[in-house]
């Protein structure tokens, strides 16, 4: 009997674990280790953040789902990986520390035959002074929509601002990225336009000054270097469409910005052209930069080999080309295909947990040398596809042996369908429905714009909103493993 251990129960890890168990059946074990007791459909957190959904609408408990699936669920955080075993045993294992199930604080070792790292991001609030609380958590000056609990808090704070605006007080709202190396500009985009939409509905828009701040070199970069869409016979940059929406909604923008410090009611920033400035705010939502969750790794002798398994950002090395090279030499083939660790072939990473070879957007820095460029997003669809491909590879390795064909899912050869909400409402909501193919641009195959215009498109409208709302229900249905769940594509 083989044991597959999946660290992480988010979109990618849950996909990997549930497919692995389905394909392996009861003959083999699948263990999920996650510090969370709930699964969270993260794309809908922005709606919790404006009060259009409750926390219960975006989360569900994992334990009953895993019990139904026959998956061994440990509510614990993974602490270290020991891929060579220890003295007296060659069996690789991980160490975990429980965060629930009545065993809080207890540590344990779990051996594995195959390990999937799907731990997702550490929300690195402390990377910007004042953004965090000094202990890795969200600070007191800003809000976040990265987790369901954060989003509940964000809505509570937003309501206070709305109340003041209703009383006639002018209020300033700032939304964007809280560091020069953030990703997830899309989530901030959704949040700012949902706030604006709610403000219009509440009749208080004229009392709000809503501003955007991000590390993008141009609006519409979204961490993927932007995209081109066919519109009116032209291949038009996402910059045009993004700027259009910001102007239409009266949202001013500051871009190419690294937020260097946050204080009560004020943030400080530095821009690509060297400008340094400050913004005051009554309410601010700033996405934190991401890092790996901080797993350590040790060899058989107990020596620290964390640098061997993990990139400096804490994400697990896989079959990518990590050779440092300038932007002009980047290739689509730099990106991983199998997500297998090159040194320990029974370790894989999926979702946000794998180390990308480099950015997707062009690297940029300020005259002082501060890097100010979006880092690569791994949105729901690629994360799910990669998780499923990794599970498939692991299952084939178990069933067919070490020479089994590994499944491939390069982000330079897959597309993504994304829906970015700009307001929730059954008859008046709006969302930008986008497809981009491929996610990572391939400038050799598609010279000039890096993407296939026939499969890259976008439009904004009520239909996009309906799609986002349907996807919310569909993916929660799928994650709960309800009848026919495997028919729903990632």
């Amino acid at each position: 009997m083989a044991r597959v251990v999946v660290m992480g129960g988010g979109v990618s890890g849950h996909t990997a674990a549930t497919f692995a168990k389905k394909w392996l059946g009861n003959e083999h074990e699948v263990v999920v280790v996650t510090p969370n007791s709930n699964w969270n459909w993260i794309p809908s957190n922005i709606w919790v953040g404006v009060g259009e959904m409750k926390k219960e609408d975006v989360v569900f408990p994992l334990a009953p789902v895993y019990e139904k699936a026959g998956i061994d669920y440990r509510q614990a955080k993974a602490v270290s990986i020991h891929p060579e075993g220890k003295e007296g045993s060659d069996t690789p294992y991980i160490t975990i520390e429980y965060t629930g199930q009545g065993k809080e604080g207890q540590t344990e070792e779990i051996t594995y035959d195959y390990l999937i790292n799907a731990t997702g991001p550490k929300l690195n609030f402390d990377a910007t002074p004042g953004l965090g609380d000094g202990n890795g958590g969200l600070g007191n000056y800003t809000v976040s929509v990265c987790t369901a609990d954060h989003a509940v808090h964000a809505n509570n704070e937003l309501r206070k601002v709305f109340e003041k605006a209703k009383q006639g007080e002018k209020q300033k709202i700032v939304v964007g990225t809280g560091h020069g190396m953030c990703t997830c500009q899309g989530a901030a985009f959704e949040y700012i336009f949902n706030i604006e939409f709610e403000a219009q509905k509440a009749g208080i828009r004229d009392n709000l000054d809503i501003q955007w701040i991000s590390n993008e070199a141009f609006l519409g970069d979204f961490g993927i270097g932007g995209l081109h869409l066919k519109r009116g016979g032209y291949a038009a940059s996402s910059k045009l469409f993004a700027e259009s929406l910001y102007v239409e909604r009266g949202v001013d923008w500051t871009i190419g910005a690294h937020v260097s410090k946050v204080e009560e009611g004020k943030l400080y920033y530095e821009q690509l052209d060297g400008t340094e400035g400050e913004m005051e705010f009554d309410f601010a939502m700033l996405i934190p930069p991401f890092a790996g969750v901080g797993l350590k790794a040790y060899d058989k002798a107990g020596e620290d080999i964390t640098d061997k398994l993990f990139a400096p950002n804490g994400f697990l090395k896989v079959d990518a080309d990590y050779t440092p090279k300038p932007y002009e030499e980047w290739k689509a083939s730099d990106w991983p295909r199998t997500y297998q660790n090159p040194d320990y072939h029974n370790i894989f990473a999926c979702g946000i947990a794998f180390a990308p070879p480099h950015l997707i957007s062009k690297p940029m820095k300020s005259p002082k040398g501060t890097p100010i460029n979006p880092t690569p997003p791994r949105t729901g669809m690629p994360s799910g596809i990669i998780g499923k491909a990794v599970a498939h590879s692991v299952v084939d390795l178990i069933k067919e042996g070490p020479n089994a064909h590994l499944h491939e899912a390069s982000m330079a050869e897959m597309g993504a369908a994304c829906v970015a909400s700009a307001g929730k409402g059954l008859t008046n909501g709006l969302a930008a429905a986008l497809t981009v193919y491929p996610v990572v641009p391939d400038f050799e195959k598609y010279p000039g714009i890096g993407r296939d215009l026939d499969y890259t498109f976008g439009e904004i409208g009520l239909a996009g909103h309906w799609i986002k709302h349907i996807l919310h229900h569909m993916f929660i249905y799928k994650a709960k493993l309800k009848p026919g769940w495997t028919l729903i594509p990632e």
Partner: protein
Amino acid sequence: MASVDHSIEKNIKPYDPSFETMVPTPFVKFMRTCILWQIIRFIVINIKMLIVVQKSH
């Protein structure tokens, strides 16, 4: 003579960044939430997304 909808112009200031982009006309804004048209777009967008999803799996 019908009145002109100037609402789309209210956020544009000459020679600001807002001056250099495009903004939707009232007709385009209307069509974004026109139920009949958006039902058609819903079908079209879903077909396009399914094609990309299939190409990616």
